């Protein structure tokens, strides 16, 4: 009985695992120390099921994150302390949003939507850093897609089924 159940669970996983509709970021580049408007594009649900929750992890080095409210969705902002203190416009910052959650809405599998927030990449980040923004997409019937794969050395996001959305931080142009 337990074995059968396990098989069924394995079966469900197997179909889910094969291929995905990626969640990506619209702007591929951000300028170090300047506000970046992150637009998460959600083009599909999970295995054909409607999306009901989007959770975004704000990675270390992205400061003063602010989500854009969205009609039909409620926002949850989780604050936390950074691993270290960063300099933002001359002032040290050590805490801010570490996770943003949009929930309560319903985005059908055959519909497209965007989820927007703003962050400032810290000037301390080395130039040409690729920042990965892990996103967990939750759907009806408990289905979950985790867009959290960060490529190992020698690999690219294309090598993964569920890559985390990413953008590159470039140095401020001198004027």
């Amino acid at each position, binding site marked *: 009985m337990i074995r059968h159940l396990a098989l069924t669970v*394995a*079966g469900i996983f197997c*179909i889910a695992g094969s291929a995905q*509709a990626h969640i990506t970021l619209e702007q591929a580049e951000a300028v170090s120390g300047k506000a970046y408007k992150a637009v998460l594009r959600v083009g599909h649900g999970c295995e054909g099921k409607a999306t009901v929750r989007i959770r975004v992890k704000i990675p270390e080095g992205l400061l003063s994150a602010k989500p854009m409210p969205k009609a039909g969705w409620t926002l949850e902002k989780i604050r936390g302390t950074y691993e270290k203190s960063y300099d933002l416009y001359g002032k040290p910052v050590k805490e801010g949003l570490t996770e943003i959650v949009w929930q309560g809405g319903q985005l059908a599998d055959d519909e497209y939507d965007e989820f927007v927030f703003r962050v400032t990449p810290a000037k301390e980040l080395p130039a040409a850093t690729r920042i990965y923004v892990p996103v967990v997409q939750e759907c009806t019937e408990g289905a979950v897609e985790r867009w959290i794969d960060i490529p*190992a050395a020698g690999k690219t996001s294309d090598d993964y*089924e569920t890559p985390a959305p990413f953008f590159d931080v470039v140095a401020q142009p001198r004027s």
Partner: protein
Amino acid sequence: MARNFPLWATFCLLARVAGLFFLLAAGADAHAVLIASAPENNDILTVAPEKILLRFNEAVRVVRFSMVAADGVAREISASSTGAEIKGSLPGPLADGTVIVSYRVVSEDGHPVGGSIVFHVGKPSPRSSSVSDIPSKALHTAIWLVTIGSTLGLAIIVGGSFFNCWLSPAGARRQSPALAAVAIMLVLAGLYLQGLDDIGMGPGWAELEPIAQAFADKTGIAQCLKLVAIMLAALPFAPRPRSARLVSATALAVASLAFTLTGHSSIAQPRFIAQGSIFLHAAISLFWIGSLPPLLRLSRSTEDQRPLRFFSRLIPIPFVLMLLAGLLLAVMEIPRIDIAWSSLFARVLAFKIGLVAVLCMLALYNRFWLTAPALAGNPAARRRLRWSIGSEIGLALLIVAAASLWRFAGPEQYQYAHAQPPVSLHLHGQKAMAELEMTPQPDGTADIRVSILTLKFDPMQPRSVSLGLRNTLRGIESLKYGLTHAGDGTWAAGNLPLSDIAGWSVDVQVLIDDFNLVHLEGDLPTGTD
């Protein structure tokens, strides 16, 4: 596979470029997702499906559609797609066992995606249900005994009739009708029991299904030929000696033909040499065994002793031919058994060779030391000759018994006799490591058990662990299994379609928390043998 590689690589590159253009232009990155399939993944089906259906969330174009059936051979599947649905006709008939269907499709964004569906045809794995997949010992013993009996009966009737007609000047001595009736019953019983074995039942009554099953392959025809041979030899078809000789030779030929149709030697290559050797080997063996009872009778009585002299003069030539044919068969068979000297096949072969060696010594002793004095009327030599022929009968029984074991010891039985040893693998990542142990099961699947450890070798409690499997060697696209947390802290899954470990790479995906996933990747070590 390798042959298609440059084409495939070019396609991949083109697809990447196309994908990049799409990314820049439209910004949409919508890959196709498999929503449903029939058969579903991990289905256990009693009847092999003829078609497979895949449903995606959007329209797709098929790039590659292939399958690896239980026999391990990869085949293409012809597919027809209507928008988001792909229908494939499975090349049939599918043998029982695990089937892996792999697909690679391109969706509207031009990005190929691939995946696999695994299903099992036939009996579910022995441990997942109460149905036993282990062959019935009682049935096999019954088949063995019946085969020994019917082969000996066939030899005594057909070979004996040949001896009587050709060597005995007294002419055709009829075979006992009671013996013929027993032999016919044994042949029929053998037919039914082998049919029962084919449909996977134990000893019992299953109406006419076993007979139909026996006629689905050549077993039925072979048994019918044996019946025909027994009847030709035992019934008074030809009263005159000349025609009786012809009939007895025909009976011997028909009986020998029956042996060329079954058994794994009959499919060794080159086929006509193999079958010719079996024919010769069977015909001479039947004649030799069939001659023993009349020879014993002759050596006891004061009848005309000429048959004994004929036999003694004649037998070395066919006997050497029989040995040569047998040797040729053994040599042809050996490359197909993976030099598995510990296998049942090899043990039976060694045993049989030993018996034949003893038999040869006995025959030489008979021919060169006993026959002449016995014919001259030396009582001690006659006694020894009787003793020697009696021993030959005993040896014949043992040789037939050993040869009848071969049905259960073909090269394919090797896999069952020797399950592959478990394979273990250590996978090392930046945040975690895994100890993986894969245990092949007799039914062609494998069980897996994974322990997740921290880099300091402490046990780790991840949120979930899943296993990705891929076999580029055999063109199998990624398969993903969710592992279940076993009581002892390890993560496990069963029924993995890994009848052969070679070429598989694993990707153990450890979800540490909501946003942290670790991939531990590696290749399964290929078996030691």
